[in-house]
């Protein structure tokens, strides 16, 4: 927790879930993390965005991440054809759930891009971080009440 609190001071914690089919070979590690400007990025590779389950994403937020960004393949290049589309629908569903509990829906997002390099994933994470910066840190992290 103290580790977490430090991170919080340093910047936002953004979790990036990315589809293994969208990334070049040298970035094919199942999970890695990196400090970047004003944020701490944790990246997790998924077999396919269609496998993305709602509880999994919610648990990431519950555990204190400030935002989750899913990087799914563009429609045309999706291995499962409709996999990334389904991921998009689930993200919409989660956003609706977040609104119901008074959380900003922006804490979850999806981009449909072929992010070939880790750098690009960091850039995408940065966009998500910008979207949530004004919201402050996730109340689950600090235990604070909003």
């Amino acid at each position: 927790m103290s580790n977490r609190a430090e991170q919080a001071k340093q910047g936002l914690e953004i979790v990036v879930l990315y589809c293994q089919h969208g990334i070049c070979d040298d970035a094919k590690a199942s999970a890695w993390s990196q400090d970047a400007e004003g944020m701490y990025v944790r990246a997790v590779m998924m077999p396919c965005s269609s496998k993305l389950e709602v509880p999994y994403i919610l648990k990431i937020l519950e555990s204190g991440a400030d935002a989750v960004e899913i990087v799914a393949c563009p429609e045309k290049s999706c291995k499962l054809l409709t996999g990334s589309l389904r991921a998009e629908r689930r993200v919409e569903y989660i956003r609706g759930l977040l609104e119901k509990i008074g959380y900003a829906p922006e804490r979850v997002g999806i981009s449909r891009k072929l992010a070939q390099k880790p750098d690009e994933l960091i850039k995408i994470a940065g966009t998500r971080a910008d979207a949530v910066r004004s919201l402050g840190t996730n109340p689950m992290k600090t235990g604070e009440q909003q």
Partner: protein
Amino acid sequence: MIFAEWKPIAELIEKLKPYKKVLLAGCATCVAECAAGGEKEVETLAPLLRMALQKQGHTVEIVTATLDKQCEWEFVEQLAEQAAEVDAIMSVACGIGVQALAERFDPKPVYPGVNTSALTIREEAGLWAGRCAACGDCVLGETFGYCPIARCAKSLLNGPCGGTRKSGKCEVNEDVDCIWNLIVERAYERGQIESLAEPKRTKNWSNSGHGGPKRVIREDLRQ
């Protein structure tokens, strides 16, 4: 299957906030089929409840469990240990499961997390529709396999009301078929329209909930 859907989360929070530790209990049968109370939904609802409670300043620990069936005592028993450790239980099974837990774990407070509302079929992915109202006097044999009790907004027995839309949909909802329109169509297709010309007398509703709480004894199965 028995169809249920989540109650508004705000309502659930109100119920849970006085407690320190709560068990959220799912059921892997009907409510899992209708994506309201299976394991996946329990594991979706639990983090949401935790986040919502914490945001409102309530520290409530939520533990989870999903039974194969919440409506049979053998399975309910599996919750005994966990139930003993919590201050309250919230069940996302149908009303039958909720009552089974309430009975078995009395005096522990048990709250429903869902509204149980119909007997449905999953027509396609993400679409459920009512099929039966447990009326206790099934007429499907005379209505070409379409239920006019559950699927006609007025439970008519003698044919369509004047409300059938041009599109063949029901006056109540333009997305729902007028079931009598379908019954009549099928009767024509099978060359049996005459059977629908026969008047159906007033129905005996007493074998449904209207006759008072259901209680059935089968001596051959008693011990």
